[in-house]
């Protein structure tokens, strides 16, 4: 049990220390790389050990500095947190290797510039902090850490396009952060605590009107971060302009931490699921509006950004239903979607380097030019679209089962929207694959097809085609991450069983409360 508790603060401390060292190392790129890779590898190991130990012995709780909750800061790792820690650490490590590979090819003088590694590690630390936070305010601090780092990463290099996209992103994030902080202030005023375990007892005792306002404020703040329709407008505009590895991390993890926060607070603080109906409606709208947006995009990165938004809808759908099966399916789908979306954005990065652009109007003949990239993108795309037997299909099937079990007309409507979204996703990614990979290079000029009619390209695309070489490390990192998504398919049974246990934990908050307050709540 003791080793377990030592590991908990380390997952935040290691990346932060690494960030400090990489910042001090400045221009010595090879050492910066070594420090970053070692830090994230250590976190992966810590995450794996925590996952096993937490599954065996129950939640790990650390009172930082020896101050007992509710006065001190409490860190809690339960099954859900441990799973999120492990998968996000793996993704961060994979993307880091990809970025390193890209840096080696480009030469040290260009990207990644020396600020990349410190920001990346601070982003990781913030992400891990958000996952293990045992109180709302620490969750806020985790969010701010990862957002501040993401502002730097998004505007890396400071080109006009990135500053423009960065401003939208920063202003939207700031508004949601202020909303979150105001919600925390009101919750403190109403209950006198910010510790989640204590709030789980005190919030249900409040008058229902007060509960509704507090819940709605939290939900709004997190929905902006998670890009739930109609608060998703900022995402497809800001993500694609960043460098490929940065976009991959943002797409895979930043929106998911918002979903994690919704999952955590809705189950723990509002166990009666008062927002079930509105959440179901926005889940449907998120799926449909997102995927319809994806269909109109001629740019692979923008198309993927829209599918990202639409697939957030599946997660919200699961949270809205709120039964143990639905929550288990949500957790499984969360893990699946983090890995597959990150991998696909890395593939888009590879396409951009080999083909010189991500615009479908100008790509072609990639199958012969880069067969390995073609295979990676193809498998990832099928997985995203939910073709059996991939994990995307299994996750969606579980979500649909949960929806059918609930059996309300709205749940069936959500089911239909989910099925339609799945098919349309397949259409969007298959079209992208056909155009970019299958279509011969010589047909690109004067190509006419109903599939390409009325597609909008990236409005800020300059129409240039600049191909760059791809290092084996970049392809290797992408392939390794794709292999991980395939593992989710091959070992879907154990992973889903774990997700079900995690869901049972958050479904019954008593486990969580007992872990934080073994002698009963004050």
């Amino acid at each position, binding site marked *: 049990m003791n080793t377990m508790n030592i590991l908990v603060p380390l997952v935040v401390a290691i990346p932060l220390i690494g960030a400090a060292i990489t910042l001090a190392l400045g221009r010595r790129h090879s050492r910066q790389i070594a420090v970053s890779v070692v830090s994230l590898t250590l976190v992966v190991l810590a995450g794996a050990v925590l996952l096993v130990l937490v599954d065996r012995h129950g939640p790990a709780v650390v009172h930082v500095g020896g101050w007992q909750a509710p*006065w001190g800061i409490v860190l809690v790792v339960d099954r859900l947190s441990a799973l999120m820690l492990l998968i996000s650490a793996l993704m961060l490590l994979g993307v880091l290797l990809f970025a390193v590979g890209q840096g080696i090819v480009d030469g040290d003088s260009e990207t990644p510039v020396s600020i990349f590694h410190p920001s990346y590690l601070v982003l990781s630390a913030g992400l891990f902090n958000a996952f293990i936070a045992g109180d709302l*305010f620490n969750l806020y*601090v985790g969010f*701010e850490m990862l957002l*501040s780092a993401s*502002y*730097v990463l998004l*505007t890396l290099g*400071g*080109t*006009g396009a990135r*500053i*423009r996209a*960065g*401003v939208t992103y*920063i*202003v939207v994030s*700031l*508004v949601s952060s*202020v909303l979150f*902080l*105001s919600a*925390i*202030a*009101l919750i*403190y*005023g109403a209950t*006198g605590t*910010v510790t989640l375990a204590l709030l789980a007892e005190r919030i249900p005792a409040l008058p229902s009107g007060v509960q509704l306002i507090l819940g709605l404020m939290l939900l709004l703040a997190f929905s902006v971060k998670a890009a739930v329709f109609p608060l998703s407008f900022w995402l497809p505009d800001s993500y694609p302009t960043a460098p490929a590895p940065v976009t991959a991390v943002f797409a895979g993890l930043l929106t998911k931490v918002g979903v994690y926060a919704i999952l955590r607070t809705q189950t723990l603080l509002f166990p009666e699921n008062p927002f079930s109906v509105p959440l179901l409606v926005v889940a449907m709208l998120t799926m449909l509006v997102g995927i319809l947006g994806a269909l109109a995009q001629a740019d692979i990165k923008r198309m993927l950004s829209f599918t990202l938004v639409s697939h957030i809808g599946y997660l919200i759908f699961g949270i809205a239903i709120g039964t143990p099966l639905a929550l288990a399916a949500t957790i499984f789908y969360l893990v699946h979607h983090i890995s597959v979306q990150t991998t696909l954005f890395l593939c888009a990065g590879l396409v951009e380097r080999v083909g010189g652009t991500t615009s479908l109007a100008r790509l072609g003949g990639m199958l012969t030019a880069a067969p390995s990239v073609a295979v990676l993108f193809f498998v990832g795309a099928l997985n995203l679209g939910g073709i059996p037997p991939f994990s995307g299909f299994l996750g969606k099937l579980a979500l649909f089962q949960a929806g059918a079990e609930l059996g309300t007309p709205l749940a069936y409507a959500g089911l239909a929207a989910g099925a339609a979204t799945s098919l349309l996703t397949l259409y969007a990614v298959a079209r992208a694959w056909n155009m970019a990979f299958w279509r011969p290079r010589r047909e690109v000029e004067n190509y006419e097809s109903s599939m390409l009619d009325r597609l909008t390209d990236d409005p800020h695309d300059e129409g240039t085609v600049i191909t760059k070489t791809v290092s084996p490390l970049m392809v290797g990192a992408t392939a390794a991450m794709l292999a991980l998504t395939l593992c989710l398919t091959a070992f879907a049974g154990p992973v889903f069983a774990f997700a079900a246990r995690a869901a049972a934990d958050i479904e019954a908050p008593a486990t969580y409360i007992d872990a934080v307050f073994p002698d009963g709540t004050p």
Partner: protein
Amino acid sequence: MSASLTLVVLMAVLYAAGVYIMLERSLTRVLIGFVLVGNATNLLIFIMSGRPGSSPIITGTALDAGMADPVPQVLMLTAIVINFGITALILALIYRSWWLARLGDEGDDLADEHAGETASSSEENFRSSSEDDAAVQASLDAGEEEAR
């Protein structure tokens, strides 16, 4: 819970003004709006801390009973630090977008006015300018003495 009406009104005004200014297109105004809204939120946390009291230090005397709640103060302090950092970052962003708007991407390629200087030549420049400073200072001192 009791709260000072002045603080509540101040908070409301800050929120209203902040949100209004944030809706402007200019990035500088957005920043000002963010600072106002951030401070309004800090005030909200402060108001939520309840009735005022003595400093939150455990003395073991009767004073402890009337202690102010220390937790919101900690939260505010953290929020202030975070707002400060973000404000600095946005200022840098504003400067960068101003730079791009005025000079465009070519601005980065402008000739460095100190290009070609070696360590000794730049030291020479600094020495001559500090000699100028000393001469100016001397004439100022002389003028002051004359006035006396």
